[in-house]
């Protein structure tokens, strides 16, 4: 599986789609080759991470990122996975 730390929904969509289905532009080496890898953004995995690690590594990152952007990121990742 893939875990992302980048916060641009458009880039996330392209990269996550590529890892799942192959290059959506069919331009690169992965064009048409489906790796079937699931991608997540770290913000989605809060419940999986021990609380003290989350607090020291991610609390600051969460605070920096606008709530609306966090929502958009999570929505994008769910859409690509087809959850």
């Amino acid at each position, binding site marked *: 599986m893939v875990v992302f730390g980048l*916060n*641009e929904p*458009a*880039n996330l969509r392209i990269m996550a789609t590529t890892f799942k289905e192959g290059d959506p532009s069919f331009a690169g080496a992965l064009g048409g080759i489906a790796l079937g890898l699931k991608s997540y953004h770290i913000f989605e995995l809060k419940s999986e991470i021990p609380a003290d690690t989350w607090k*020291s*590594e991610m*609390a*600051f*990152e969460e*605070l*920096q*990122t*606008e709530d609306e952007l966090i929502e958009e990121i999570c929505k994008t990742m769910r859409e690509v996975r087809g959850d």
Partner: protein
Amino acid sequence: MAISGEATGGGNPVIRNCAQCLVHVPDLVPYGSKPHREIAKDPAVGPRLAGALRSFPEALAYPPNQTFIGSLTPAQLAEIPRPWYSQTGEQNEKPAPTGPFGEIVPQDLFYAVLNAANVLTPPLIEFVSEHREALKSRLADHPVLSSFADFDFVPEPTIEAEIAEGSALPLWSGETLLGGVRRDNRAEGREDQYLDAATLLETLSVKASGAIALTWLLHREGIEAGEIDFVISCGEEAAGDRYQRGAGGMAKSIAEMCGCVSASGMDVKNFCAGPASALVTAGALVKSGLYKRVAVVAGGSLAKLGMKFQAFLANGMPVLDDCLGAMAILVTPDDGVSPVLHLEPGTIGNASIGASTSDEAVYRELILEPLKVLGLAMADVDKYAPELHNPEIMEHAGSGDVVHKNYRLIAAIAVLADQIAKAEMPAFVEKIGMVGFAPTQGHIPSAIPFLGHATQAMRNGAMRRAMFLCKASLFLNRVTELYDGVSFVVEANPRAGS
């Protein structure tokens, strides 16, 4: 105004003056790292890129560029509607090429300065017979840079033939071939992979652009070159040969070109935080009493030209990363007037290696610790200057507004320090922030472009304090996972007006 007496150790030094220049070099964009690689993969990219390059009037009228040289403040830039690149200078009065902090230099003038920067025989750079006198006389007529026009041409230029056979890099002005750059073909350099034409063009560009900024600094300060006693260069180039690939020597090369006969110097390297580290070092040298007039110089990065060109082509925009940035800062003992660089123990923000285990720990060290030593709350700083990348470039490149992200980071620290509430973050960002305006060029946009604006505002009594916050991606050297940060506080001189 004279600097007080002999250099005395002890008190904080001042930011006495600065120069901020841009060099518009559209025909060097194909030699940027990203364009060069993409054109090599697909030659059809070359003409498409050429079709999206800006003219000098367009680059001159571009509001972020006008902000870099001080003709607009960041606040004034924020008022101008986007897209900024629609301001082509046709509708309004054409802006002047010079501003309070320096100049936007056109390409032909820069080619002449590149020629002046050459010291080797045979020369690394050569212009064709037809155009070279015009290039030189344009430089000789320049009110600030004319001292560089004191160079000779080779009697019989051979550069055109070398370009035709592919052994030299052409220097174009649109469709006109003006000259070229060759590798070091002498016995010592002939087989050295690090002395190819592209690398040497990069090094020469650092020297030439740095020399332009340093000359502007001398001009603004109204002093002779001989009055500088130490120069520090802080760009990200690697100047040297195969045995000493990044050994440097750029500070003295630039200072020599500008006639700083009394100066010694050295290069300081710290990725994007190079200028901040250099400034702190310069301040410490002055504060210790070792030197009286230290110049920090940063030449531009040729490698980063056109880095985001694909995004511009995809969006039908002109190529906006077509300028080299160049800056020079003068640090002296306290003159009772100029803004002060705080160098009391603990007032420089560092990212200690131990703290670098978490982002939060790093930024607490960088921002909160120095302010604590100064007895200040975050809101006591009028403006924070982080990396100031032009959002028009970064957003189209898919990175979002990096400046805004940096301000969210600063505001997040204020929340974690219980100085503001989470709901107050947007208002805090509005108060202490500004819009970005600098080219995406590593060490160039890293906080320092605000120095001209901040020191001007402090002299006018319009600002009290600014914190400059620089990040450095050390991990790009592939032998660490660390990134670095350096912060410093500049404050209006408490004795000013007394």
